[in-house]
């Protein structure tokens, strides 16, 4: 079963990487940009009885390793279309 995890910096935490990318794009002719934040996508393929069981396992993986609860939020898409 395929799943996708989207990991983002929590709102309110300064994303210095995002600010740098925003400035670069502004320099490339996109002055309309107001905000840009960079996150991470993790794609997984796992054995599971059903989507609910798979999502529960992936959530556990997020809490244990994939996301840092101090700085990041995550969302899970499972199963993938």
């Amino acid at each position, binding site marked *: 079963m395929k799943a996708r995890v989207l990991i983002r910096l929590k709102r309110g935490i300064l994303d*210095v990487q995002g600010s740098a990318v925003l400035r670069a794009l502004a320099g490339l002719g996109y002055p309309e940009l107001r905000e840009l934040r960079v996150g991470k996508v993790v794609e997984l393929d796992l054995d599971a009885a059903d989507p609910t069981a798979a999502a529960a396992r992936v959530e556990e993986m997020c809490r244990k390793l994939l996301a840092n609860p*101090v700085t990041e939020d995550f969302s899970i898409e499972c199963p993938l279309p």
Partner: protein
Amino acid sequence: MRFGVVVFPGTWSDCDFHYVIGEVLQQPVKYVWHRDRNLAEFDCIVLPGGFSYGDYLRAGAIAGRSPVVEALPEFVARGGVVLGSCNGFQILCEAGLLPGALMRNECLQYRCQSTHLLVENTDTAFTRGIRPGQVLRMPISHGEGKYHAEPHVLATLKKQNQIVLRYCTEDGGVTRAANPNGSVENIAGIVNDEGTVFGLMPHPERAAETAMGGTDGLMIFHSLLGSLVEDGSVLKR
């Protein structure tokens, strides 16, 4: 004092720590592989700087769940002390042994430079030989050293006197200009609530001989040695 210096794939300061402990301080020291869990023969475990596991995912994230780090809570519970510098500090935060997190430097640059550090807490095994308010000079070398903690965590750190080092000017001023990476409140090093686990971004092992440009890092090692009491235990405070 018996030191164990942990080696992860990608660690780079392990040899420097081993040299300073073994040659400069003449103390017994061994390398500890990241898969080892048996730490019974050591009094102090050092997590050195570098890029453990390539710093994939986040700096220190994978190392923070490695066998040797999983063995640290028990090691500390039976009286051991842990010193994590640079990547070691990131690993301790990732493992939850210290609160907060270390994020990409606000300036976005990798910073390799000398820093001045105000010693705020001299009531730990790592700083007992230092005067309160003393300014130390040690180098930093990192791209992800911006200390971040939620306001309630920060309040607890202050209340329990867990902030050990802050970036400062040469004369001890804690200013924005003296902050190399954007750390909240210039924090450069903290201890756990027991004072037995110390994480700092600066490199004490790179300020341990005159030839290195300074010896202030030795004060941390000498404090540790001074904390070892006759029965072999380490004084916490």
